[in-house]
């Protein structure tokens, strides 16, 4: 039941967001017809095209038309590239998904590990070092870190390529991986602090809780206490942070893909916005909304999975 309820809620939010996206983009000054015709627009051609595109229909008709074609997977045609948006979008998404997945696994695993270590060694040298490391991470802009890494690892020490993307093949595995290396490092380092800080503070809290004290009183070893009792509870809050990080990740991907000339979703989005390519923008916004909703849904479900109190209707 809980799952169904969450699913329904997600669909409602998705609907609201996509409608908002449609509305907001309609407010753009200068309509699509003007954008397509550019400087060659004469009042007559403008009128004809507006008619053809159905721009004079009432807003609700336009909205329904857009909604139904979007649901059928028809995302329209890019005004600038003059090609259908859907295939371009899918390809770009696939490439960004590689970056996002690797980054996500890295921040989830390393971020939590660092946070837990810092908590166990609270106020010792390791903790202070890790806190400083995390502080620099949240303070450095993604694009600057990316450029510094390029200076270090492709100009001074030519180990990794500074930009671009190579399709995956077994024969050029290293080539493929080397193009991903600097972008993922950049994304990981700028995002990891959120999770590290969260897991550190929740681990510290758990270590001070009564049941840990009880376990200590029973004479359990420190290792057992941490691994069997503390860890599981300490990692729960980091699920939320991971879900929230999805929003950051999308912003980060837009910047990092720009810096590394990586032909993914982020760059397509920035391109669409800069060129005022309305169909591209709309499609990208819908994708962001969907991704965000799915991320939150997964977080909620994970939560209910690890914390039965939520599943059975008692808010934790």
């Amino acid at each position, binding site marked *: 039941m809980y799952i169904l309820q969450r699913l329904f809620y997600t669909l409602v*939010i998705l609907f*609201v*967001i996509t409608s*908002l996206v449609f509305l*907001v983009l309609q*407010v*753009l*000054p200068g309509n699509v017809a003007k954008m397509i015709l550019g400087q060659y627009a004469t009042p007559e051609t403008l009128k004809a095209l507006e008619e053809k595109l159905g721009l004079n229909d009432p807003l609700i008709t336009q909205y329904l038309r857009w909604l139904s074609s979007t649901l059928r997977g028809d995302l329209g045609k890019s005004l600038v590239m003059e090609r259908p948006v859907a295939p371009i979008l899918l390809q770009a998404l696939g490439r960004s998904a590689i970056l996002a997945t690797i980054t996500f696994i890295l921040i989830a695993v390393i971020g939590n590990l660092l946070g837990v270590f810092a908590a166990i060694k609270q*106020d010792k040298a390791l903790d*202070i070092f890790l806190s400083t490391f995390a*502080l*620099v991470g*949240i*303070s*450095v*802009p*993604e*694009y*600057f870190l990316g*450029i*510094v890494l*390029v*200076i270090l690892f492709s*100009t001074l020490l030519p180990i990794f390529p500074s930009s671009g993307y190579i399709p995956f093949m077994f024969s050029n595995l290293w080539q493929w991986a080397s193009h991903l290396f600097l972008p993922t490092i950049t994304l990981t380092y700028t995002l990891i602090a959120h999770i590290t800080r969260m897991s550190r503070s929740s681990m510290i809290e758990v270590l001070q809780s009564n049941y840990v004290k009880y376990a200590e009183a029973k004479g359990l070893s420190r290792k057992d206490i941490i691994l069997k009792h503390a860890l599981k509870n300490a990692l729960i809050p980091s699920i939320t942070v991971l879900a929230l990080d999805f*929003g*950051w990740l*999308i*912003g980060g991907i*837009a*910047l990092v893909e*720009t*810096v590394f000339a990586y032909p993914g979703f982020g760059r397509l*989005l*920035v391109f669409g*916005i*800069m060129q*005022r390519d309305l169909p591209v*923008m709309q499609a990208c*916004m819908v994708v*962001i*909304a969907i991704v*965000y909703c799915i991320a*939150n849904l997964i977080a909620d479900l994970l939560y209910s999975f690890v914390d039965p109190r939520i599943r059975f209707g008692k808010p934790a």
Partner: protein
Amino acid sequence: MTSSSRMPGRIARLRMKTLPRPFLIGSSLIVLLLLVAVSADYLAPYPYDEFHFLQRMAAPSGNHLLGTDEFGRDVLSRLIFGTRISLMMGIGSTLLCLGFGVPIGLYSGFKGRKIDEFIMRIMDIIISFPSLIIGLLIMVVTSPGTIKTVFVVGMIFTPHVVRVTRAVSLSIVKKDFIEAARARSESTRFMIFEEILPNIWGPIIVEGSLRVTYAILLAGSMSFLGLGTQPPQADWGLMVADGRMYVGEAPWIVISPGMMMCIAVIAFNLFGDGLRDLLDVRMRKLG
């Protein structure tokens, strides 16, 4: 940290009437940055937009301490003027989102029930979109500029401030003195601004100083992508973007503004975190 005591860290330090070191570092850096921003006209050795064509992309030297950029403009001077613009964007937009967010948050927390639910759902939806993307969308609709960036960043972060303000005001709303004010049938405005607000200044200031870090970063990102501050003016983000093409030949164009941005953000982070710890201790002491 300090060799001083075996007492639990924070309290010991407070008792010694000294402030924690990170907080001190943060606040002195902020003062320094503000001084630079205010006295940019006197500090900068050259105008920020003066071309020196014979010294394009010159390495740092006595004449140009941080080198020159692709037009032969003095990087140090641009950095100093950039400090003014970047800080103005960061602090200005933070003040803006506090100005909008705090009253909305207070109102939402005070009213509760349906109004609260309604306001918070709207805030959730705005927060759910990546802030950089909203920023770019708004800026592309109209012609970008520094002042507009301040407004846009302020708008984007308003929901975050609303959330924090609402959360802290919820704990105050249930207190007896609010009940008393209700019994006296005071106006909503009076209760919100005269009764609740004075009790939550601490968390709001902490939120504000940490919000500055996000604001500086977001405004910088927008400038970096060309939709913030416009040339020939310079903020740190735009300077990084300009120098990016010449990173192989003249890395100093990029390094110094990037470093400045890191330093500023670290400073506000240290300040905000330190402030939170201090207020936390005080609140715990008061019970």
